[in-house]
């Protein structure tokens, strides 16, 4: 293994040196015979003007013998050190660095690593640059760069490009940061290209331990950059415990303000909001349904994803169409330096990814993932799938005594997704990207009723097919027009589709003589299409102002229909509408950079109601000192497309999308107010944010009040509107750096709904969790990454029953019924859970053992009520069963990349 490391190290050196030799002069004839290293360096420095940087622990009395014979100094030094315990490396500036072979080094550290000794040539100039991953050349979106002397800084855009407006001189120093990467100090030197200044950052930990300097500072999760914002890079979540898939959404659930109380859902319940109130943008297009396997996993394969930002509230005017929160996901462009492959294999799924350059200006990435019907998949699918009796009495054979003759088989159930991207960078100013995503779930819980004798094919089939997923793509053009203006324009298409076929089929003759195939049971279909165009423009016109404005037009076409027994179309909705939005905002830095304030206004026209909707927003941060800042935000938010949760079916695709119509389904609006502060000292961050959210026109769908027996249901009798309020405080104490990192998160919150039809008084919302405590710890020890997470949450509210009864039907069979009690009037017991994981990293990958719910805590998911008959007394009792979340579940994941 050590040999392998050395080889790799050597390879890197050769690779780097070959690229750099041009920077050093050619030495025609110089002979060193058994001289001390100190003498060797001194001569090269004095006679040839070569800059040599010798690491501290290098023995200066090491003897060198070498004849420079018409060779570059860099190459010569490299060859001269052969056979010694040292190696050399020449950086961009022609500085030759000598260090011990055994030293852990960061090759990239040498680039711009020395303070310039030259006199400055430029002052107060503009600097345009890009921040890239040092290994793959991948741009690092939203990375930050700061001028050390003035504390002025800038954030890179989605393409990793940034502009620093007023760099004091071309010998200034910059501090460059990106989550999951090592923070780097860059020393400017006169003569560099400041119009396309490329800064490369190294991954903080992970794949190549050899090039990592220990003790470097990096964060696993970044909070506090902007109000209500969290950032996690998918690279880091692989180290966290998982239950089959490393899941971005589940990683965010470990943060305060994002509830993890629904353990079977990867959905983002942000500050009392529902997942549909969270805008999920993937490479610029909206993704409407973001989960796999009944919501257990998020729909996104984390491997092709580069950056994820979550705004818990108070988000800026650039984002619209949702009332709670925003998650912005940026996928990787693909390695621009070499073709590379990677893959993971876990007890849940397999995934592969390929990325690389296509010529000089194109890069590509393609990643695919598919679940496989392993024991873990089956365990989760069995726990979540709709109950088998959901469509009983399923025609002849369903009731009655021949049930024993049935053999039911789950034909196939799986999910898959595909991510692809092609990036085209024709010049330093333009970037074009085509991104494609599709993900699908197929659930087949059909039962085939067959006779166990012989090879007869007789029998009936009961289908229960669910299929849902997304297809989306975007074509993006971003351009750095000049040092002042940057634009990002895209066209996109996004489709969400969900079909459920829970039927029995039979042939049927109508009175008019036509024959027809008729299905008993229910058929459900929801389809959403979103065609969008949007353009965001950013201007650095004035010092201390970043002006942002943009335009967005979306055409939404949503259909939803639900029919029963072919003849009863319960709901059949088709909504089409154009939504046109424009926004303007200005990020200002006032009072000597102490106050950052961003007023903004978003204006929307919604075709469904033919009305204008205004969303004024304001956020600000006040830097009291270097460590301490205060922050606040207020804003108005509207939502036109909403997801309605059905409570009449147990599982499967429980939600459907509809478009507001201004009548039964009014446009939902919310008001956010957030106030908080943060204190950062050394490796620690303490952050607190108090929030208040007021929601108007929140819609719930229920058949609970099914008013007319036997009649079709109409929207006004199944959709009920009300209001909601959420208030709470999120606390975060984070240890950001070091071998031991992690955080404590605590949220105290109250989320109420008031829907007059449900209850005359406000009642706790489904997601009302009073206390939620989370702990995340990650420890790095040599090649091992150990991590553990702990969750404690107050029990969620639920609607219980007043009582139960049963009715004997005409054929003598008995059916159970229950009568609901007050809405969400009860609470489940508190839940808690500990997960642990251990990852062993090796050169070509890692192996992770993860254990979910270590002490097998039985957390209640829901309660089930049934009447049971005592076989002796024939008395009928009401029984109550707790259905629990997943218990102890281990998983092993192997990740390989080459």
């Amino acid at each position: 293994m050590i040999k392998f490391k050395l080889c790799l190290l050597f390879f890197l050196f050769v690779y780097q040196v070959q690229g750099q030799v041009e920077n050093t002069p050619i030495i025609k004839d110089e002979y060193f015979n058994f001289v001390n290293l100190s003498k060797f360096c001194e001569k090269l420095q004095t006679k040839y003007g070569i800059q040599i940087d010798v690491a501290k622990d290098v023995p200066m009395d090491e003897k060198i013998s070498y004849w420079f014979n018409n060779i570059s100094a860099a190459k010569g030094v490299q060859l001269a050190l052969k056979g010694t315990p040292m190696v050399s490396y020449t950086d961009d500036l022609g500085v030759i660095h000598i260090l011990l072979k055994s030293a852990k080094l960061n090759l990239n550290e040498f680039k711009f690593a020395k303070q310039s000794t030259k006199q400055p040539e430029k002052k107060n100039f503009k600097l345009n640059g890009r921040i890239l991953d040092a290994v793959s050349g991948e741009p690092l979106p939203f990375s930050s760069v700061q001028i050390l002397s003035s504390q002025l800084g800038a954030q890179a855009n989605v393409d990793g490009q940034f502009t620093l407006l007023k760099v004091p001189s071309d010998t200034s120093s910059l501090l460059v940061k990106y989550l999951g990467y090592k923070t780097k100090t860059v020393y400017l030197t006169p003569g560099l290209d400041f119009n396309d200044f490329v800064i490369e950052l190294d991954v903080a930990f992970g794949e190549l331990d050899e090039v990592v300097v220990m003790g470097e500072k990096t964060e696993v999760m970044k909070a506090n950059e902007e109000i209500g914002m969290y950032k996690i890079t998918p690279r880091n979540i692989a180290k966290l415990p998982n239950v089959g898939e490393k899941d971005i959404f589940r990683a965010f659930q470990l943060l305060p303000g994002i509830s993890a109380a629904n353990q079977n859902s990867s959905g983002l319940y942000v500050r009392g909001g529902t997942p549909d109130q969270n805008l999920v943008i993937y490479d610029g297009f909206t993704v409407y349904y973001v989960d796999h396997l009944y919501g257990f996993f998020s729909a996104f394969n984390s491997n092709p994803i580069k950056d994820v930002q979550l705004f818990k509230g108070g988000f800026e005017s650039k984002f619209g169409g949702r009332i709670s929160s925003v998650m912005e996901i940026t996928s990787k462009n693909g390695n621009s330096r070499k073709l590379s492959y990677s893959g993971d294999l876990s007890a849940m799924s397999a995934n592969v990814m390929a990325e690389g350059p296509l010529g000089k200006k194109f890069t590509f990435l393609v990643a695919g993932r598919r679940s496989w019907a392993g024991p873990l998949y089956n365990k989760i699918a069995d726990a979540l799938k709709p109950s088998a009796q959901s469509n009983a009495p399923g025609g002849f054979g369903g009731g009655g005594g021949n049930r024993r003759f049935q053999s039911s088989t789950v034909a196939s159930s799986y999910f898959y997704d595909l991510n692809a991207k092609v990036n085209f960078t024709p010049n330093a100013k333009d970037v074009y990207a085509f991104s494609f995503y599709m993900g699908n779930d197929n659930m087949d819980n059909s039962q085939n009723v067959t006779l166990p004798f012989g090879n007869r094919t007789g029998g009936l089939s009961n289908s229960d097919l669910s299929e849902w997923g997304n297809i989306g793509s975007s074509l993006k053009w971003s351009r750095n027009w000049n040092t002042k203006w940057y634009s990002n324009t895209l066209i996109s298409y996004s489709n969400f589709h969900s079909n459920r076929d829970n039927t029995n089929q039979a042939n049927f003759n109508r009175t008019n003589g036509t024959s027809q195939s008729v299905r008993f049971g229910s058929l459900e279909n929801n389809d959403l299409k979103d065609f969008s165009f949007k353009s965001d423009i950013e201007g650095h016109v004035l010092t201390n102002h970043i002006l942002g404005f943009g335009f967005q037009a979306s055409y939404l076409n949503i259909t939803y229909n639900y029919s029963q027994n072919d003849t009863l179309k319960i709901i059949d909705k088709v909504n089409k509408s154009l939504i046109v939005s424009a926004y303007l905002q200005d990020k200002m830095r006032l009072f000597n950079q102490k106050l950052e304030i961003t007023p903004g206004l978003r204006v929307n026209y919604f075709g469904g109601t033919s009305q204008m909707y205004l969303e004024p927003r304001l956020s600000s941060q006040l830097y009291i000192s270097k460590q301490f800042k205060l922050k606040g935000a207020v804003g108005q938010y509207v939502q036109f497309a909403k997801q309605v949760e059905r409570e009449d079916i147990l599982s499967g695709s429980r939600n459907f999308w509809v478009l507001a119509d201004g009548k039964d389904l009014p446009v939902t609006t919310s008001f956010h107010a957030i106030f908080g502060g943060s204190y950062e000292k050394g490796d620690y961050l303490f952050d607190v944010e108090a929030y208040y959210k007021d929601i108007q026109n929140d819609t719930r769908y229920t058949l609970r009040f099914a008013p007319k027996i036997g009649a079709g249901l109409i929207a006004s009798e199944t959709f009920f509107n009300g209001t909601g309020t959420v208030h709470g405080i999120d606390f975060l104490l984070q240890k950001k750096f070091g071998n031991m990192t992690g955080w404590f998160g605590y949220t105290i919150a109250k989320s109420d709904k008031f829907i007059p039809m449900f209850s005359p008084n406000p009642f706790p919302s489904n997601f009302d969790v009073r206390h939620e405590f989370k702990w995340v710890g990650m420890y790095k020890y040599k090649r091992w990454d150990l991590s553990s997470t702990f969750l404690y949450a107050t029990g969620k509210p639920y609607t219980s029953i007043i009582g139960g009864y049963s009715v004997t039907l005409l054929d003598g069979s008995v059916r159970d019924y229950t009568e609901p009690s007050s809405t969400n009037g009860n609470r489940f017991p508190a839940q808690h859970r500990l997960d642990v994981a251990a990852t062993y990293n090796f050169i070509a990958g890692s192996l992770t053992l993860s254990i979910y719910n270590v002490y097998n805590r039985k957390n209640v998911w829901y309660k089930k009520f049934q009447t049971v008959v005592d076989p002796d007394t024939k008395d009928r009792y009401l029984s109550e069963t707790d259905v629990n979340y997943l218990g102890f579940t281990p998983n092993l994941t192997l990740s390989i990349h080459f």
Partner: protein
Amino acid sequence: MKNIHLFLILLVISLSSCADLENGFVDNNPKPVVEAYLSPGTIVRMRVYKEIPYADVTSATTNKEMPIENLKITLKGPESSVQLTYKGEGLYQAPATFSIGVGKEYSMKFDYNGMAVSATTVIPAKPINYKADKDLITRQAIDISLGGGGLGGRPGGNFNEQSSLNLTWTNPNSDYFISVIENMESNPVEIVKFPVDPTRVRPDIRFRNEPIQGNTVAIRPQNFQYFGYHRVILFKLNPDYVALYKRNGNTTQNISTPPTTITNGLGIFTGVNSDTLKVRVIPE
């Protein structure tokens, strides 16, 4: 601005009232559950019992379905009104003289726990042109009582569409129908002879389909479990009965109000009408 004040106030309230655990339902008196099918030519019987209260599922005394005894139940028809007689175990019965007429409206009423419980229904017409395409079905007797290992040779019976028992009737208004097939033999013989096993539960003598709005249904021979004569009953239904087949939900995730037309009560009080055919299943 107002909102910010409100926000601050609410914040204070939230901090000072964080331990409030809402207490759920109010356990009022259990509702009465009624079960009555009114059909021409049959004596009206009605079962009335208490909803099992959820108060304490572990209590053996209260967590139990209990009959409601000695109610004064009035049954009113278009011509007359009668009081039902209590027959024990929650069962009430009308006098044999009280007849049920097609298309007529009937209602019942009683007081329970100070509440007037009532319901009304109309008796549907008898199915018209109810016919079966055969009255004899053959099934191969199968004997697995001696181990059952050597099965699978010759397929028994024909399970294609042609051999199905096809029931037809007239249904111009898309009314609801359900068919129930019931073995009539006093000692029915099972088509499949199983090994002797006293713990084995014999197949039900009845089977049915779901309510449909069509005018035909095909019953496959393999649905029959017994040899002998069977009643093939076609019920014409009211929509309130059909609603019973809708899923009501029995978990805290999907509970909804159960379908009923009974005021201040639960269950079913509905008129049905039926026609009956006979079919005989014989060994091949």
